[in-house]
């Protein structure tokens, strides 16, 4: 090694390169054309940073670092490769939680060691520790809910008060540690226990329909925690990458909350459907069933069909069958479009990913703003496992918890066909007035099975 090239210079130069590669990669990921190369650039940056960190001055415990790294990497590689596209949201939640846990672990090591150098550093270590621990336990709950391991939303009176007390207690414990007043191991343990319980308590009452916002928020949390721990370790790569993710994630979270016409505070602090009691009584009429054969005829002889996919399509893995159906219709000269609500599914863009997997071209997929004026000219609006995002109650009923949320105007179509597994209310528990309209027919069944029947019906026309 030449004399001017110290390990420290090599490390700093590599981290500089990594930060640049991350930003460049994220930038490329923001356009569909260059998106794939974006993750490759960012991946190269990660590889450089990881390898060069082995040269860190004063490093030891390599015999622990390498096996731990390979264990975590192997499990993640295996699970990431085999997970179905429909289960992506919970995997992102899981990996995000792991990052938050790692940031909390760094804080824990620093705080238990008790050699924090100055108030600013110990404050940042504590802040990153709390945020990382909340993101860790909260993301695990989000994973459990989306994976179907936790089916209930736990709510009880005084829940917000409990969360507030937990937060205050964690802040007090954190302040005592940061001020070097009492930084004993017992106090550090108390801090992390409080933060972990806070993450659980915050996330348990939140319903599945709100999970996109929650996962996005915890993604931003983890980014911020990583940035704070980067300050503690004096690591510029962590500061830059963590901060970029923290601010980007915050923006993404706001975009999503806005799409639901709710504030972030509303998502976090009021359980979805809490005020839904009044709305359920206002629905009149009855749900009218229809056979697949009749729907097939209706669509085959229509001019224009708009498909509204929702979480039900994801659960049934129906995207391939749906696209097959659409291709049959397109071959017959029917105009087919997909209408995607910003919060359809469990993540923003969730439906887009699934439709892309099935091979649906971009130009057939339309956003809420683009498509809403077109429903009036559509012969058939085919709702596949979507519910709240097409509930006209959001436009009309001020007492409804989803009042004001922009919806897809599927009810304006000449015929509305709803593919639905059963007669129950949606994820939010709100009755859907759309299902009771005169121009609505219900096609009961699993989305994949129903799509297969429709394919046969259209072929038979």
């Amino acid at each position: 090694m030449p004399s001017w090239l110290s390990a420290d210079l090599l490390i700093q130069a590599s981290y500089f390169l990594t930060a640049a590669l991350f930003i460049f990669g994220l930038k490329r990921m923001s356009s569909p054309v260059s998106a794939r190369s974006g993750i490759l650039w960012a991946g190269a940056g990660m590889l450089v940073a990881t390898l060069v960190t082995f040269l860190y001055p004063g490093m030891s415990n390599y015999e622990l670092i390498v096996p731990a790294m390979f264990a975590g990497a192997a499990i993640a590689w295996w699970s990431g490769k085999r997970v179905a596209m429909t289960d992506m949201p919970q995997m992102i939640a899981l990996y995000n939680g792991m990052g938050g846990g790692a940031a909390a672990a760094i804080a824990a090591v620093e705080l238990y060691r008790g050699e924090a150098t100055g108030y600013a550093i110990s404050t940042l270590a504590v802040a990153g520790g709390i945020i990382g621990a909340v993101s860790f336990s909260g993301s695990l709950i989000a994973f459990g809910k989306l994976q179907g391991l936790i089916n209930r939303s736990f709510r009880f009176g005084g829940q917000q008060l409990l969360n507030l007390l937990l937060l205050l207690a964690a802040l007090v414990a954190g302040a005592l540690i940061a001020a070097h007043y009492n930084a004993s191991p017992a106090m550090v343990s108390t801090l992390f226990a409080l933060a972990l319980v806070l993450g659980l308590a915050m996330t348990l009452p939140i319903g599945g329909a709100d999970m996109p916002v929650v996962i996005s928020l915890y993604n931003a949390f983890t980014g911020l925690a990583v940035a704070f721990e980067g300050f503690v370790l004096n690591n510029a790569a962590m500061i830059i990458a963590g901060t970029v993710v923290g601010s980007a994630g915050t923006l993404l979270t706001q975009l999503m909350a806005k799409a639901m016409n709710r504030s972030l505070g509303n998502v976090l602090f009021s359980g979805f459907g809490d005020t839904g009691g009044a709305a359920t009584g206002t629905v009149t009429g009855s749900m009218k069933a229809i056979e697949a054969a009749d729907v097939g005829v209706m669509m085959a002889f229509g001019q224009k069909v708009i498909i509204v996919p929702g979480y039900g399509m994801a659960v049934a893995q129906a995207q391939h069958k749906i696209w097959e159906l659409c291709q049959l219709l397109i071959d017959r000269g029917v105009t087919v479009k997909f209408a995607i609500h910003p919060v359809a599914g469990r993540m923003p863009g969730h439906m887009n990913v699934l439709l892309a997997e099935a091979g649906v071209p971009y130009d057939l997929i339309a956003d809420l703003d683009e498509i809403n004026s077109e429903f009036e000219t559509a012969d058939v609006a085919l709702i596949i496992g979507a519910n709240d995002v097409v509930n006209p109650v959001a436009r009309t009923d001020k007492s409804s918890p989803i009042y004001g949320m922009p919806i897809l105007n599927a009810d304006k179509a000449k015929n509305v066909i709803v593919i639905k597994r059963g007669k129950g209310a949606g994820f939010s528990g709100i009755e859907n007035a759309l299902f009771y309209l005169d121009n609505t027919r219900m096609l009961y069944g699993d989305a994949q099975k129903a799509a297969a029947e429709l394919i046969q019906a259209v072929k038979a026309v």
Partner: protein
Amino acid sequence: MTGIVALYIFMLAAFTGYEVIAKVPVILHTPLMSGSNFVHGIVLVGAMVALGSAHTPLEKGIGILGVALAAGNAVGGYVVTERMLEMFKSSGSRAKKGTH
């Protein structure tokens, strides 16, 4: 790195993150969230340093947990993002064919 320089880095990085995401189409929201999830996997280098300087069994235990979790974040985040974007690429080329 002095405190004030670190603050400048923090401020500039925050604006960078905001600007990079600001114009992203809805269609890429999930892959981008997944991609940014991968990027904060950089916590791995911090976890390595923390474990690399650990002395007591408690510090080592937490450090091992941190490294394993961080490696999971980085690798898992990369794999799922790459898989999602892989589909987007092919669907994009299909779209070009399909429209003409």
